């Protein structure tokens, strides 16, 4: 619970640093320091938490060891994110301190979403997470694409918020409560149309935020248009938080009605995997390809919403951790590139072996190749769904789609290792110093560690 307060206060401190500190370096150092504090707080939370669920703020929030672990994983990834990208974040525009502040405010939303107990808090969490992202998407003010991304994200986000509120309202109408744990009772008897419609609207709203098809349409434009320094945050940390909220709500409240809404989730999974993977094939820009790939990855994360069992709970931790790390790695490399097309990666392995290696491992993980975390993430997801009786054709379809993903991920690896280029692939003024490389190696090592010791995320 402390972590919510800590992230909000650190956000305020960082915001003030914008007016009291003059050097960009000082602000960066402060942000890095703040991310370390956040990590420490998360670890303290993990140590304090027992398996019992504890309620806070008159039952608005609830924490247990699972939420504490998830928070710690997210805090850790946030720390890595700040470490890897702080240089690039400063370069986006003039208001560098504000960018860091907004990231911490968004993290407040993230931590609310991992441990809310009341649909008020769900709504607040989603908005606290989303609004800073709207701003961050448009932070490169002089860039038309960035402005476009911000506006589109905002307009469509507002649209989906409408559905979220409507869904909450309908559910309230059907159950008479906002408390997610008390709604679990409504499983008995034939559900009312109001309740079903409410669930549908909640799936729509959360599916939108999680970029599940057919509500994914904003994703490519926003991820592609946003400054590259912020895309990994949106695509990894924010998305995992949304999934945590999604799964928590459906696990605590609607598990009893699973028979009714499973069909919708299956339809969304199939559509998401299909559109994400198939459209990614044709992309020319690696950044845009990654945007589609994040849709495809969301398809895999949705399996956890279907299964809602112990395996999928482990799976979401593992998949989430490996997905966040891999996204961070590949974007950390991408951001140093001069040219975001596939050809831009030509010959990177010769010039920057560390970067190429990190990118390769990240792509292996995203594709789900064994000995990286992504493999076990996918394995747990599919296994959890299978245990819960998902039709076998969906699983086969998912594996086929994962096979397609290998094609477009490996195009990057092929460019890096098997093609040559006369000029440097990286941006001439990109900062590729030793600390950056060390962080990248740590990130890569963690991805491999998750591949050979996957149970580590569940035991700590």
């Amino acid at each position, binding site marked *: 619970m402390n972590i919510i307060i800590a992230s909000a206060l650190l956000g305020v401190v960082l915001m003030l640093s914008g007016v009291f500190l003059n050097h960009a370096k000082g602000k960066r150092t402060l942000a890095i320091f703040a991310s370390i504090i956040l990590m420490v707080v998360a670890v303290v939370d993990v140590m304090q938490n027992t398996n019992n669920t504890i309620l806070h703020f008159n039952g608005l929030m609830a924490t247990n060891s699972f939420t504490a672990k998830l928070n710690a994983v997210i805090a850790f990834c946030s720390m890595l994110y700040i470490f890897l990208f702080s240089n690039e974040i400063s370069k986006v525009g003039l208001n560098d301190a504000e960018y860091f502040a907004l990231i911490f405010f968004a993290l407040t939303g993230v931590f609310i979403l991992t441990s809310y107990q009341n649909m008020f808090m769900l709504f607040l969490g989603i908005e606290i997470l989303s609004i800073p992202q709207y701003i961050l998407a448009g932070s490169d003010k002089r860039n038309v694409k960035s402005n476009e991304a911000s506006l589109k994200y905002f307009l469509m986000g507002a649209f989906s918020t409408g559905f979220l509120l409507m869904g909450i309202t309908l559910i309230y109408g059907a159950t008479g409560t906002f408390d997610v744990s008390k709604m679990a009772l409504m499983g008995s008897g034939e559900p009312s149309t109001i309740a079903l419609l409410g669930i549908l609207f909640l799936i729509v709203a959360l599916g939108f935020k999680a970029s599940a098809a*057919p509500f994914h*349409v904003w994703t490519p434009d926003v991820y592609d248009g946003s400054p590259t320094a912020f895309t990994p945050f949106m695509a990894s940390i924010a998305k995992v938080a949304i999934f945590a909220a999604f799964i928590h709500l459906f696990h605590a409240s609607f598990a009893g009605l699973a028979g009714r809404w499973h*069909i919708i989730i299956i339809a969304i999974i199939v559509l998401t995997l299909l559109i994400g993977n*198939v459209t990614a094939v*044709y992309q020319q820009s690696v950044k845009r390809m990654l945007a589609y790939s994040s849709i495809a990855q969301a398809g895999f994360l949705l399996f956890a919403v279907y299964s809602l069992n112990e395996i999928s709970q482990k799976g979401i931790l593992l998949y989430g951790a490996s997905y966040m790390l891999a996204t961070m790695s590949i974007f950390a490399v991408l951001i140093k590139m001069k040219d975001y097309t596939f050809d831009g990666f030509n010959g990177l392995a010769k010039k920057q072996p560390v970067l190429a290696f990190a990118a390769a491992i990240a792509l292996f993980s995203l594709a789900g190749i064994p000995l990286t975390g992504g493999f076990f993430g996918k394995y747990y997801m599919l*296994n959890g769904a299978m245990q819960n009786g998902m039709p076998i054709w969906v699983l086969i379809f998912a594996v086929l789609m994962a096979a*397609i993903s290998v094609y477009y991920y490996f195009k990057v690896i092929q460019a890096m290792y098997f093609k040559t280029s006369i000029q440097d692939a990286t941006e001439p003024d990109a900062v590729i110093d030793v600390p950056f490389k060390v962080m990248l190696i740590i990130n890569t090592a963690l991805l491999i560690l998750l591949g050979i010791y996957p149970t580590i995320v569940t035991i700590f």
Partner: protein
Amino acid sequence: MSQYIYLVPLFPLIGFLIAGLGRNVLGKTLLGWIPSMAVLASFVVSLLIFRDVQHMDPEHASVVVQIYNFFHVGNFSVNFSFQVDQLSTLFLLIITGIGFLIHVYSIGYMSHDEGFGKYFAYLNLFVFNMLLLVLGSNYIIMFIGWEGVGLCSYLLIGFWYKKKEYCNAAKKAFIMNRIGDLGFLIAVFLIISRFGTTEFSEVFRSQAGIVANGPFILAVTLCLFIGATGKSAQLPLFTWLPDAMAGPTPVSALIHAATMVTAGVYMIVRSNILFTIAPVTQHIILMVGLATALIAATIATRQNDIKKVLAYSTVSQLGFMFMAIGVGAYTAAVFHVITHAFFKALLFLGSGSVIHGMSGEQDIRMMGGLKDKMKTTYYTFLIGCIAIAGIPPLSGFFSKDEIMMHLFTNGAYGKVFWALGMIAAFMTAFYMFRLLFITFFGKFRGTHEQEHHVHESPALMTMPLIVLAILSIGGGLIGVPEVFGLGEHWLKEWLEPILLKSELAHIYINELSHRGELLLMAIAVIIAFLGIILAWSVYKNYDAKKQNKGIAKFLEDKWLFDEAYDNAIVKPTFAAANVLKTNVEEQVIDGAVNGVGKLLHAASNRLRYLQSGMVGFYLFIMVAGIIALAILLFFIH
């Protein structure tokens, strides 16, 4: 002490990381000694653990140390855990002990090579994987190590990758091993499907319900054996091993003589309980082992490359080990693994010393008279030759004799197998001493320049030779047969807890009397001496210019195995591939695959247009999607 078992593979792993990451940064001294010390540290820990196991009650000495839970899904769980028992600790000592000697030797041997750091990184990675292979307490971990050593072997065979043929040799080894690995993998899947676990202790405990010689157990054991034939270079997958000599000589000594190639033997001995209830598989193993031993020995008699002779000798000796397995004499197999590790490592390192002294020359026709110029190498090589020929009291005699004894007493045809085994043993003595005489006796036949340059190797290289020579002399003491009245057969006692069930199941048809046993030994020794004398009479004045003809030529050409494989498998495959390519592939498969690809691209291209960039259109898609989902929810349900 057993709980520190993780240290044993950890040290080489750290050594690998240091040498691998620092290969361009650290100096040669550090790059050579850090990995060597890592292996030495592992050896010390292994020694302590070995002593610990020795002092424990043999029944309870087997400990499974769980490092962590690898993964756990539903009710199938795989642990990353190590098994410490009599068998694995024995192998630990061989791997780390000989591994250390070879590391030290390599510092001298590779001192002029530019890939020095890379070499040591690979070598340590190999040791790590090999340790994983023997330590794993289930088939999954064993398989990881199994694949790991295959990879390292590939990397090290093709170490001098600038030569095309070396790369081809590496590829050949990799592919041949892959065929075997497939067998292993299928066996593991079969085991999982039947037992729901891959943990050795559980699998072996639950084998009771299986019908002996039933289809399941035959399939499992045969698949495991196919895995072993690949890794341990048995017929028909042995041809990669001679080619593997393309790698640096210490690699041949470590990987392709002492450790990796015996992995197949280890795996079968580890699973001995499964093999004991599959006598049909055992017969097949016996036949394959015998055929391999004979064929490889005949080829070895006519090879002119010093390393090739040793390579075929290794294949032949591995054949002996499989013969032992085939008759259920697992102790004898392990015994021969150990002694063979000593003397074959010695011989390889000795040949490496010769090659080093001759500045890279490997053709024995260009050598001769080296015994005065390279004294230490000569004497240690001589000891190796005596050991492998089976002259008492050197180590090879005891282990080979034990195998022969078991062959003799095995079933009705035991005597026939014994006789064939003796022929192989005779040839062993012959080809080894042929090698010795041609290389070290007579006149120097190389160029003038080489003659001038020939020198004894530095102490870094001769010290390991001396240590291995001592081991080759005394190594047999761990298994002196009871007939000599020196007490119990130590190795047999030691492995008793592991092999107990198999030993009980095995029935010896005709038990030998002590006199009969001594008689057999005497025959074996006489035959070995005959081989040596024949070699002396033929090769004391070797004429390099004489061309081989007839059978000799056939043997020199390695029974034309490579050509036969080329003609029987590779060429027909290519021919068939060509036919398939022009007819089936280009039209049907290409059509289908490209069709899928094109379809994908076309679909991708179509779907791309959904992303028009218009917010209004996006919202339309969303709303349409919501309506569709609502219909799905309310009406199709």
